């Protein structure tokens, strides 16, 4: 009885898994153990990467019907930020005080509001004042960064990777504090001017609660503190990071890449996406445009060259580990799995993908945020009517999605080239994954990623074996998508409504 109900609720999922299992058995018996295991593991590695891009896509589409064409770029940004942090974080630490100062300024809205709301400004002048404030903010903002050698700072990373022998020696001198301090101050001012425009001086219809003002004041205080710390520690921090144990530095790089991706996502949602919820088509176009802009900016800062990030020490001791336990003790480059010599770092990627899936599933199922997301997928208006700020949830979910992609990017950096085209490559695969799995379903994205990754890996194997064109494995993903859509137009686990 229970079994029957279980089958009814999960029949698609179980059918797909059974088909995969059957194909696996056939493959194992015809290919022989070693090629089969190697190909399967390669497939899983790809699956993990595809899932990391697709998870955010499907989450964001499910909740807010936004197709984020810049999701691939977020993976790329994560990769660059993480790689830069790992090899030479001077650039990031130089940038951090500026970013925090701007954020602190922008957060001033609710703090400024009680002060400016009562200004006696005639209605006809209010919009002019707002426009003037924004123009002033842009001028101040440009003044703040005038003369910063972004490109020079970024290129130090190249030197570090190319010379690589002693990254510490390459930690570049930075602008002295005596002249640098004015930059964060000006950026804070620029942010505050924008916040003042947002507070709509003289317009009493905008209501800000007292506790909101108080909370914002705390936020601004905290951000200013962080800005001050970042400003003072700007020179010491890169050296401290570079003299750190490589594994710890790698973990921090994962964190840094994720945070940069999540932060950028939040900014994108608040500034570009959220004004356009009434115009979905514009959202698609704006995220597409954003993908181009990000790719160009990255080429501007880092040149179009591909970079290779070195693996952290935990995965780079020479020699092969006899089994997975030996690897944990030895930190070898490769591990023996059922007679196959497999790069240990790729196992880490598979584990990261699985971990991400489990964490996401548990979050959706058991946390309040997850509950709100599941409810919002069905009926945003009702969620709002319960007193929940859906707008803020949107920002949060969007930033979660881009953060996950960025984590995927920095995770992938040690075994795929870090280059300006990596965004597009993974975006396409991510989209196909989501379409196969069903828009909005996390489990669907996992299944889609599994199918695609395995198809790519086995496609490559077959192409090599029968000396066919390798295009066959690239075509396989589209063929799978077409087949799935023929049977299930909404994708495997998509909503049928």
């Amino acid at each position, binding site marked *: 009885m229970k079994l029957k109900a279980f089958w009814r609720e999960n029949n698609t999922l179980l059918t797909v898994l059974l088909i995969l299992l059957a194909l696996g058995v056939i493959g194992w018996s015809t290919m022989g153990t070693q090629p089969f295991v190697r190909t399967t593991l390669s497939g899983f590695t790809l699956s993990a990467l595809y899932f990391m891009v697709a998870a955010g896509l499907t989450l964001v589409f499910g909740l807010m019907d936004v197709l984020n064409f810049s999701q691939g770029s977020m993976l790329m940004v994560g990769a660059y930020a993480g790689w830069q942090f790992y090899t030479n974080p001077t650039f990031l630490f130089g940038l951090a005080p500026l970013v925090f100062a701007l954020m602190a300024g922008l957060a001033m809205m609710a703090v400024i509001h009680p002060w400016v709301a009562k200004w006696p400004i005639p209605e006809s002048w209010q919009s002019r004042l707002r426009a003037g404030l924004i123009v002033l903010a842009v001028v101040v903002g440009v003044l703040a960064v005038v003369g910063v050698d972004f490109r020079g700072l970024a290129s130090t990373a190249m030197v570090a990777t190319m010379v690589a022998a002693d990254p510490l020696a390459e930690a570049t001198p930075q602008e002295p504090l005596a002249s640098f301090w004015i930059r964060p101050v000006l950026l804070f001012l620029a942010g505050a001017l924008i916040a003042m425009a947002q507070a709509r001086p003289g317009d009493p*219809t*905008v*209501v800000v*609660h007292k506790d909101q003002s108080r909370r914002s004041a705390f936020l601004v205080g905290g951000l200013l503190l962080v800005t001050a710390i970042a400003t003072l520690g700007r020179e010491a921090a890169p050296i401290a990071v570079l003299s750190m144990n490589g594994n710890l530095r790698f973990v921090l790089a994962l964190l840094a890449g994720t945070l940069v991706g999540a932060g950028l996502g939040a900014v994108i949602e608040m500034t570009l996406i959220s004004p356009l919820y009434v115009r979905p088509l514009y959202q698609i176009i704006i995220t597409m445009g954003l993908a181009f802009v990000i790719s160009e900016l990255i080429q501007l800062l880092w040149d179009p060259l591909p970079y290779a990030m070195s693996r952290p020490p935990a995965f780079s001791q020479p020699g092969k580990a006899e089994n997975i336990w030996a690897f944990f003790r030895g930190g070898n480059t490769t591990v023996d799995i059922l007679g196959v010599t497999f790069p240990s770092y790729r196992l880490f990627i598979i584990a990261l993908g699985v971990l991400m899936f489990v964490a996401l599933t548990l979050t959706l199922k058991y946390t*309040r945020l997850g*509950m*709100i997301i*599941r*409810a919002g*997928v*069905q*009926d945003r*208006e*009702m*969620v*709002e*009517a*319960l*007193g*929940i*700020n*859906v*707008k803020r949830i949107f920002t949060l979910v969007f930033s979660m999605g881009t953060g996950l992609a960025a984590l995927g990017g920095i995770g992938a950096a040690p075994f795929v080239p870090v280059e300006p085209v990596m965004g597009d490559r993974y975006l396409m695969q991510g989209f196909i994954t989501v379409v196969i799995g069903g828009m909005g379903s996390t489990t669907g994205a996992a299944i889609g990623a599994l199918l695609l990754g395995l198809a790519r890996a086995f496609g490559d194997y077959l192409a090599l074996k029968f000396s066919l064109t390798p295009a066959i494995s690239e075509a396989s993903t589209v063929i799978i998508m077409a087949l799935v859509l023929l049977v299930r137009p909404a994708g495997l686990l998509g909503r049928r409504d």
Partner: protein
Amino acid sequence: MTQSQDILLDVSAIHTFIGQFHILEGVSLQVQRNSITVLLGRNGAGKTTTLKSILGLTPPRQGRVLFDGRELQGKRAYDIAAMGIGYVPEHRAIFRNLSVGENLRIAERQKGDLDRKADFIFGLFPDLKRLYKLSGDHLSGGQQQMLAVARALVADNKLLLIDEPSEGLAPILIEQMMEAIRELSATLTVLLVEQNFLMASRLAQFYYIIDDGKSVHCGEMADLVHDEALIHRYLGASVRVEGGGQ
């Protein structure tokens, strides 16, 4: 006048547009504390839009809404709801992929709201306790309606906006729902939209009639019941069909 003290919700001359359609063309109404007030009118007269306009889901373009002495216009729906307004929409809008318990818990505005209110809510709707773990899409219409009302009771609300609680329910369930709403009105204020004239007349103390997006008549329910001409003019057939059995 001391009466203004007793008015929880004061809507004056609101105009609401949906897209380019001018749906509300001047609705004014006042709801007294701890009363049940019903909005009557034909289908498409603008009753549901009135509720949504109060809550800010379809913000009025003109006019003024005062709730508990505070102005609502310009505020976002979530802010308005958080000031103490519970909403039970038409068609219930139960979250189908959440369990009954989650449907209640999501309405918490402060941690522990549900635990504090659990006895009260399950006292009103004992069935929900039994169904607590069931998924929202397995509920019958009546159970959904109970859950929708219960959900609006989890947070500390002063006003409930209830849209067509009797819609699609069997007579015995309508009876239960009426009993529950009557019990609620001891501590809460209720603004109701109801097509079922019989139910409305037995439940509400005050009525407003909305016709063609305007509030055209108001008064005490006890008087309306005897005013055949008024009923016939604004409510027409719907009353005779549903109230005819009496």
